[in-house]
């Protein structure tokens, strides 16, 4: 009887239904060559499980510091810091809409202040928030590449997407001194329009504190129904078909 490698593997992994498992086990007992093939699957599983668990799982003498953070989240759900974007409720409005809701909690106004601060250092800004060098980068800079803007800022193109409506959308970051601005812009009705922007500030320890969260770029991408990132080829084709402006 012909037994495939995948069937033998499924036997080793306990994934066969009882009847097939009995049938295959019987065949293995009758055929040493088959038993040797099966052993490659059982042995690799044993070795992986033993060595990797022993090497990495057994090292946790002290409790993970994250455990305390998680427990703190259990006991104090009401006083979430504003800088934890991932803990904001999913129905949170896009940052662009925050200013239409003047009576939000302190958390939200802190986020607005942070975004305002983000605008501050960027000159040459057009009404919708994108500067001329940023527009130029949106038109031509491939994802994964960086370019210097004026005043020591560095722009890195992150990725391109298609929105659910088919518009080309691009995510980029601009870093200047200790501040990083993350932006999602879509090319619609003949020009680039900012769909999301947030800034993150480097703190004293060198870590980044999202001011209004980088986490919410995910919400913004979900809102436009973003596709998976375009491949370099797809992106090049999309940029080629997008005249500047």
């Amino acid at each position, binding site marked *: 009887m012909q037994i495939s490698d995948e069937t033998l593997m499924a036997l080793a992994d306990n994934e066969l239904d009882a009847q097939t498992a009995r049938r295959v086990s019987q065949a293995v007992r009758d055929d040493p060559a088959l038993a040797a093939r099966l052993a*490659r699957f059982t042995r690799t599983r044993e070795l992986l499980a033993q060595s990797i668990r022993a090497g990495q799982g057994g090292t946790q003498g002290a409790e993970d510091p994250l455990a305390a953070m998680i427990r703190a989240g259990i006991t104090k759900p009401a006083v979430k810091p504003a800088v934890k974007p991932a803990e904001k409720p*999913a129905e949170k409005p896009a940052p662009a809409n925050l200013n239409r809701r003047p009576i939000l909690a302190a958390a939200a106004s802190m986020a607005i202040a942070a975004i305002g601060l983000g605008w501050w250092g960027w000159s040459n800004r057009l009404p919708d928030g994108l500067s001329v060098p940023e527009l130029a980068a949106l038109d031509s800079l491939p994802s994964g*590449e960086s370019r210097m803007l004026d005043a020591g800022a560095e722009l*890195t193109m992150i990725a391109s997407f298609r929105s659910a409506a088919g518009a080309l959308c691009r995510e980029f970051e601009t870093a200047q001194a200790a501040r990083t601005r993350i932006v999602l812009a879509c090319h619609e009705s003949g020009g680039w329009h900012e769909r999301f922007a947030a800034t993150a500030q480097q703190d004293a320890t060198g870590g980044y504190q999202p001011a209004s969260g980088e986490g919410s770029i995910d919400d913004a991408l979900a809102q436009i129904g973003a596709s998976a990132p375009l491949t370099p080829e797809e992106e090049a084709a999309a940029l080629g078909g997008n005249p500047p402006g």
Partner: protein
Amino acid sequence: MDAAFGEALIALLPNLRRFGLSLARRPDLADDLVQITVERAIAGQAGFDRQARLEPWLFRIMRNAWIDMTRRQRSAGTHVDVFDIPEALPVDPAPGIEARLMLQSVEAAMATLPEEQREVLHLVCVEEMTYAETARILDIPQGTVMSRLSRARLALAEKLGIK
């Protein structure tokens, strides 16, 4: 957040760190991945079906976080592979030198496999996910899980000298 969810999350931190290390192969990035996963899990716990197992749900969050991270880091920094710097590997004095040697050869053999094979290997053989769970975590058909896993195991057996 309810306490049971939190404690279940805490109990799975070592599993998350292992999977993070298997994806990122750098301890600092693995730590970041664990933290992001925990934050997203807490934020998204309403979307978790309490009847389901927590591990596959968490692994899926982590894998998506990893995709985000690699997307962002395509241009940033040099990649230091954990297997090139032995001191970056977790220290485990208890089981003795032989276990460490075995760990290193298994890890080294695993490191030569393509990422898509490494992740199925880790999820099934180390984290004991079923084929169906692995397929859902990775968003691929179960047949693809099986073919990748089988190729990965045969390659690993070969490298480790299992006849």
